[in-house]
């Protein structure tokens, strides 16, 4: 059987494993990666804090995934499609989703599902793996329309056990759809460790069954991720069909703010791995190694990021109250009589608020 080695560009000390792309990953590019990774981590810390303070609902943290999400999102072209899950808001924000809308989503607002007007970023898919066939369909439609746009679908290790994973990949492979199936394998589906999720050693090897390329990268190495996704997108645009990418990451924290990981895994061991493998720390070491790091630069971007996030939180909290019309008015283009009647009755009597 083919083997699927873990592909790296930089090691845990931030030094080159594969130097061939040094020119491509120039100072500007590396700093762009770091900026986005710092931005989404700062946002994530704010998200957890807001949940703890009761200012938003259940929140899904993603620390450990920043390299995978930023590396992949920055590989996309302007008009590509993104089909994320609930843990991929870091990728959505990097590709261009609106920050305050994202926070509205965590605050239980339908407006939070509204895609950005500029980018084709779908609202996070909650039911596992259900959006993989959507990415396949969007990609097939782009071919039909004669564009060279592609699609990317995000999903976790647990999603590979759902039927929709197979169906999405199979159809995409049959039609050579320009789609990248981007798996972030963090080793846990809530509490279930990967060795109880599947009998296969890697996720990348599942590509064999569909006759498509499977690539396994260190998902905490932003360069390796970026390069793999870019290459897959190029193949896709050339009509060479889909690619399955497995980005191996660690979920540093809980599944959601409602989850207690100490119930099912040794959190201290995870913390030790975090210290060694943190994608931000690794990129910082790389910046230092190449002489691109400066405290003033980091302080300045950190301060910009904090301001941006505070402004978004304020906007989220000052948003006009949720409007009950929104749940009635968009079920169909023209409401059916049952919906019109129910809307009228609620207006006369009032809800629970």
């Amino acid at each position, binding site marked *: 059987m083919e083997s699927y080695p873990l592909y790296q560009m930089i090691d845990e000390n931030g030094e080159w494993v594969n130097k061939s792309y040094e020119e491509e990953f120039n100072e500007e590019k590396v700093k762009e990666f770091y900026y986005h990774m710092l931005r989404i981590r700062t946002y994530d810390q704010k998200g957890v804090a807001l949940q703890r303070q009761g200012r938003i609902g259940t929140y899904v943290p993603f620390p450990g995934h920043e390299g995978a999400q930023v590396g992949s999102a920055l590989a996309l072209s302007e008009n590509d499609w993104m089909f994320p899950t*609930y843990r991929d808001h870091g990728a959505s924000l990097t590709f261009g989703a609106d920050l305050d809308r994202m926070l509205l989503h965590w605050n239980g607002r339908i407006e939070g599902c509204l895609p950005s007007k500029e980018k084709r970023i779908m609202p996070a898919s909650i039911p596992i793996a259900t959006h993989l066939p959507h990415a396949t369909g969007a990609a097939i439609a782009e071919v039909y329309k004669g564009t060279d746009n592609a699609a990317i679908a995000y999903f976790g290790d*647990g999603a590979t*056990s759902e039927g929709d994973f197979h169906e999405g990949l199979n159809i995409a492979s049959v039609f050579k759809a320009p789609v990248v199936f981007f798996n972030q394998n963090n080793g846990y*589906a809530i*509490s*279930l460790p990967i060795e109880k999720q599947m009998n296969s050693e890697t996720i990348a090897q599942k590509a064999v069954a569909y006759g498509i390329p499977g690539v396994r990268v260190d998902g905490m190495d932003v360069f390796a991720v970026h390069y793999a996704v870019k290459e897959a997108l190029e193949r896709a645009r050339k009509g060479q069909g889909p690619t399955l990418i497995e980005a191996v990451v660690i979920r540093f924290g809980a599944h959601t703010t409602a989850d207690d990981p100490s119930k*099912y895994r040794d959190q201290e061991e995870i913390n030790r791995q975090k210290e060694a493998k943190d994608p931000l720390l690794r990129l910082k070491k790389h910046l230092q190694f190449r002489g691109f790091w400066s405290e003033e630069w980091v302080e300045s971007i950190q301060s910009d990021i904090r301001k941006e996030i505070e402004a978004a939180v304020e906007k989220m909290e000052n948003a006009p109250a949720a409007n*009950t019309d929104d749940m009635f008015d968009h079920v169909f283009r023209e409401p059916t009589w049952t*919906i019109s009647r129910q809307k009228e009755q609620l207006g006369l009597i009032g809800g629970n608020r």
Partner: protein
Amino acid sequence: MVMSNEIIKTKATSQSLTMIQAITDGLKTMLDSDQNTIIMGEDVGRNGGVFRATDGLQETFGEKRVIDTPLSEAGFVGTAVGMALAGLKPVVEIQFLGFIYPAFEQIATHVTRMRMRTLGQYHIPMVIRAPYGAGVRSPEIHSESVEALFTHLPGIKVVCPSNAYDAKGLLLAAVDDPDPVLFLEPMRLYRGSREEVPTGDYRIEIGKGTRVQEGNDVTIFAWGAMIPLVMKVSEQMKKDGISCDVIDLRSLYPLDRDLIADSVQKTGRVVIVHEGHETGGLGSEIISIINDTSFLYLKAPVEKVTGFDVPVPLFSLENDYLPSTERVETAIRKAYTF
């Protein structure tokens, strides 16, 4: 730990439990008494379930009987079909009712049909547990109340307790039932209150509702998470001299036709409250039973207070989606003054 459990077992005949604890206790009673029972689902083992319904059970009964499955609802419900064919009694947990759809094909095409297809040679004694309902600020698709999709399917019974006592008794009855049962758990009531729950084994008959408040003026039919709401409103109504006969149907398929008729024939005025969508909801089926059994006893048109014909919205609007005290009160007054 074992010591203290033993003491409780021998000394006490009941204990004060929340609904979630009563469910855990029921599952434990089941695993203790029947070697052929097993539990399967996502995160039910080491994690003890996302709501802790199976907390500690894998530790006590082992990984062969309390099984963490891959993330695969169609897979483990289908696997449970095979296990049931081979003589086991699987109790599977769907993490939230809104995530049951991948397994819908298994339920609609196999779980519900096996007995008939084999003219009774095989049957599927399976229980599917699923938390349901809105009102706890859950994320999208975690708040569905689609019991009517399942009461419509021939071949599966559907039950839904509103309190800890009924939860354990109905669960054990569902496990005992030779046919498949969907056991809906109102997650909003998991930890809301405690009540005395007998230790050990007892059953609540599937197909029987219960009168939770005796009254003469207006009948209210409800179940699950709607019961505390209608009890609150019926208390308020007492101040205005309106007495409500509150019926907790608790068995949604089959419905308790006799109890429905008994109450309607007494009051002649009816309000049905459910959190599922209105069109095709169970309320319409109850009206059909009233039509068949008690048409000439009616003094007013039957009122329905239900969820709307819209996807359950994200939580900022979920309380507007749900039947409210105001809507229930308005319906009671309308029926009463007609």
